[in-house]
Structure formats: structure tokens, C-alpha cells
């Protein structure tokens, strides 16, 4: 069973605001899920590497495009600014990031 404090800590890391009722509900549900995934501890994984790139054909690595800046699409930029909840002069406005 994970604790209430652990749930509160995770919610804080994930920046999700939860009510007291939700904290308890998720505590129960996450505990059940975490119990279930404990099954993975049955396996001896000595020497097995973590899966990284899928569909990687033998010898080939991920192709990166050349590093140069594409011309900006002003129409797209305008659409994106339009979607922002709070904007000013072509910038997105946010609450202050720094503490006083």
C-alpha cells in the first residue's frame, strides 16, 4: 500500500491538483496496480539490456536531419499565439516564474 504522503508527493511532481477524496481513491487504485506490477520481480534479468530503439534494422542507427533552421511559418505562429489563453504583443503571458 503506498502512503497518502507518497500520493501527495507524486501529484505534486505531476502538477495535478487533487482533492482529499481523490487522494484516497488514487491511493487505493495505485496500490492495486503497483501490487500487480510487482510480478515483474519474478524474473532474473541478469545481463539483459533495456530495449531502446524499436524497428532498428541491424547496423542502422536513427537518422537525423541536417541541423539548419527552417524559415518560420508566420501563419502557424499566429495560429499558435491565438490558441494561448493569455497573450500580449505576440507573446504568451504567464504568471511570474521566479519567487520574490
Amino acid at each position: 500500500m503506498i502512503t497518502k504522503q507518497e500520493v501527495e508527493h507524486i501529484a505534486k511532481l505531476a502538477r495535478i491538483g487533487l482533492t482529499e477524496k481523490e487522494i484516497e481513491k488514487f491511493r487505493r487504485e495505485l496500490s492495486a496496480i503497483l501490487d500487480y506490477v510487482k510480478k515483474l520481480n519474478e524474473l532474473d534479468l541478469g545481463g539483459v539490456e533495456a530495449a531502446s530503439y524499436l524497428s532498428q534494422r541491424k547496423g542502422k542507427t536513427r537518422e537525423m536531419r541536417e541541423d539548419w533552421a527552417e524559415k518560420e511559418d508566420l501563419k502557424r505562429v499566429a495560429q499558435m499565439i491565438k490558441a494561448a489563453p493569455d497573450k500580449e504583443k505576440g507573446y504568451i503571458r504567464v504568471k511570474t516564474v521566479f519567487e520574490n
Partner: protein
Amino acid sequence: MKLNKLTIKQARAGLIKGEFSALELALAYLDRIKKLDQGIRAFLTVSEDSALAQAKLVDEKISRGEKLPALAGIPLAIKDNILVEGMKCTAGSKILENYTASYDATVIKKLKKQDAVILGKTNLDEFAMGASTENSAFFPTRNPRDLARVPGGSSGGSAASVAAGMSMAALGSDTGGSIRQPASFCGVVGLKPTYGAVSRYGLIAMASSFDQIGPIARNVADVRIIFEAIRGKDPLDSTSVKFPISNLQRKIAISKFKVGVPKEYFIEGIDKEVEKVIRRAIKKFEKAGARVFEISLPHTQYTVPAYYIIVSSEISANLARYDGIKYGLSEREEDLTGVYLSSRGKGLGDEVKRRIMLGTYALSAGYYDAYYLKAQRIRTLIKKDFEEAFEKVDIILTPTTPTIAFKLGEKTQDPLSMYLCDIFTGPVNLAGLPALSLPCGEVRGLPVGLQMIGNLFAEEKILAAGEFFEALNPEF
């Protein structure tokens, strides 16, 4: 109405011959949506005006005698986590309830280049998380075969729209079974392509090493046509790969096939009637001369827990962008942290929160090795299971799901029981393989799906096997 029953090939032939216009075709589907969607609720947005405008352009091309692209005038439905510029794209979530897409997904660009007609956006489990479409923040979609039952998920709206004849075909997305399972529940055909075969640019990301966009249609030939249209390397998706096999049309004799049936997929938990139907379907391959072997995928029992840890971890990273700053729901609060907590707290549904938190936990300091890293190492073992199997066989046949479509509300109280719906489909995404689900029978009046899994980039083989099976059983 006859127009609602046409295949893509038939529709194209009819348009070229002048038997009907693209406008008439689009209207036939829009009409059917008006008639049926009150009861089924597959659509979140119906884009009637733009669909008719697209259809009219096709008719103008026909009247000028211009050559028509493969999908010209074909009415399609698009899952609402794929961006279509200028149309709302909600991902089935309140946090994007009023978000308008500012660009077209690459697959949409490709469909538009082919002059396809987009009828609208279909319902889904919120952010594609779910197996029933009940997690949509707006309303659940119902199974056209039985309105008291779920259509499956997360591409429930897309599968239902095709099954009910409200679209000729549809696009869905699949991370752990979200194309195949609803296709199975609704009695239609669905393909999850090889990871990297189709660009994810413009697909609202859920789990980036699993997600793939794929077609849902009433038959395999239509699925193949759409897959041809949407696949391809995209500079905007660095995980997309140039498809190595150039000829998807090559016919392969089933008598030359070696078919694998994994013993771990036929244990308890599967509906006995479903098992009978699946085994009967597999026998048909045997009768046609294919060699059927029992194979073993020994790490099958670890696939669901490994899947949920890795997927949730990727989800926690991908959904961090929904923060009330750049777009979407934004709550007014005193400070920045407040904006985040409140916007996400109010805008995201329970299942989404659950997975974000599970992922955050699995990636957090002190737990990363025990959960995420461990699961990724198990993923390697699961991939190896399939690699070794494909040294012996051409395709692997399994049930798509352990049961037929369940009733609405039946699994909503227990998240774990919903997760187990993915038991046969999830391993495929862990390994990045292509898989097709097609109808192979019925149990208690509801469709059963047969899953055909292929090796990496072996869509050709599974589509060929699918067409072979379809030809034997036209009634499905």
C-alpha cells in the same frame, strides 16, 4: 442505402464511371450519420461543410477528365487525436475541449493530397487511454451491433462509424490495442502498422515508443489501400522509417505459410466460446495447406505489467505539456503552480491522472531502476520471444481479445480489469510489430476478432493472410 455498403475500389469505379458523384457519396454518409449517430455517438465533430466542399472539388476533377488519386471522394472518419487543421481536436478531453488544430497531421496531409473526404472526428477514450471509449470526457460511444455494449477502445468512435456504415473507412491509433480491440468488438478490420511505418507527426502523443496510426475498414483490401496512402518516412517524425518492402500487392500462397499459435494465449480468462471460434478459424488455414505449429512466447505473462509501467512513464512525460499555458483549458490562479495544479486537476480525467501518476512514480528518484528500467529490460525479452518465433513461422494467430464486447459500465469500477483487455494486443506494441484484426465469427450474436501478427515490416504477409481468410468467409 447502397452507397454506404461500397468498398473503396467499388466507390472509385463508380465515381470514374459516373454512376454517382462524390457529392452524392458524401451526402449518403452524412445522411447516415444524421440517422444513426444520435444512438451510437461515434462522432465528436461532423464537418459537413468542408466534406461537401472536398467532394465538390473531386466532382470538378471528374468532369474535367482528370486522373483521380486512389482515395478521391472516399468519405473517411478521423479519430479525434489526429490533427486536422482548422477543426477542433479534443483528444476526448476537457483540457482540449475548445482547442482548434493549428496544423494537419502528416497522415492528414497525405489523405488530403489524395482528395479524400473527411466527414468528421470520432470519439475516443481520453488521450487514447482505455479499452471501451467510456473514458471519453464527453460521452461513451455504443457498439452498433448492440447499443448496450461498448465498441471497444480507444478508437471506439472510428470502429463504430465504420461498422455502422457512417464512414467508408476511418483512421484510428493503436498503443496497446486501440485499433485492433475495437475492430474486433465491432466486427470490422483494423491494422496496427509496424512501429515507424506511419508518421506520428500530428498524432496527439500518448506513449511515443508504442503509438501508431492505422486504418479501420470493412475489409482487408480497403485497409491496404489506406495503409499505402498513409505510410512513409517523414522528416517531421524521426522515428518513421522508409518502408523496406515496396510491393504490398504481391499475392502470397497460403499453402506456403507457416503459422504459429502461441500456447500462452490460450489459457484461462479467455471466453470458451471465443476460443472455439478462434480455433475453428485457425483450422481453416490448416485445411488450405498452411503448416500450423504450436509456439511459445514464454514472457507473455509479464507483458501487461511491463506495458503499463513503460506506457505510463511515457504518458507522464507526454502529457506534461497540458499545463494551461500554451493552449487548452486554463484556470485562473494566484501563481504559476496554481495554474498547473488547477488546469490539470480540472481538465484531466481519472484514467489519465492515474496513468500520469503511475508513470511519475515509476520514473521518480528511488524507483526508476525498480520499475521503468526493469520493465524496459523485460521488453527486450518480449521482443526476443517474437524474434525467435518468427524464425520458425511467417505469421502468428491469436484471439484479438479474451471476450466479446462487454456491457457499458461493466468494467469501469476496476481499472485493472480494463487493463487485462489488452492482454493479447499489448505485446505486439511492446515489440513494435504489425498486426491485423479481422472478424472470424460470432459468439452470442457479437463479433469475434482474429489477430494476425507479422514480423517487422511484414504487413504484406498479414494482409495476404487476411485476404485469404476473408475470401473463405465472406459472411464475416
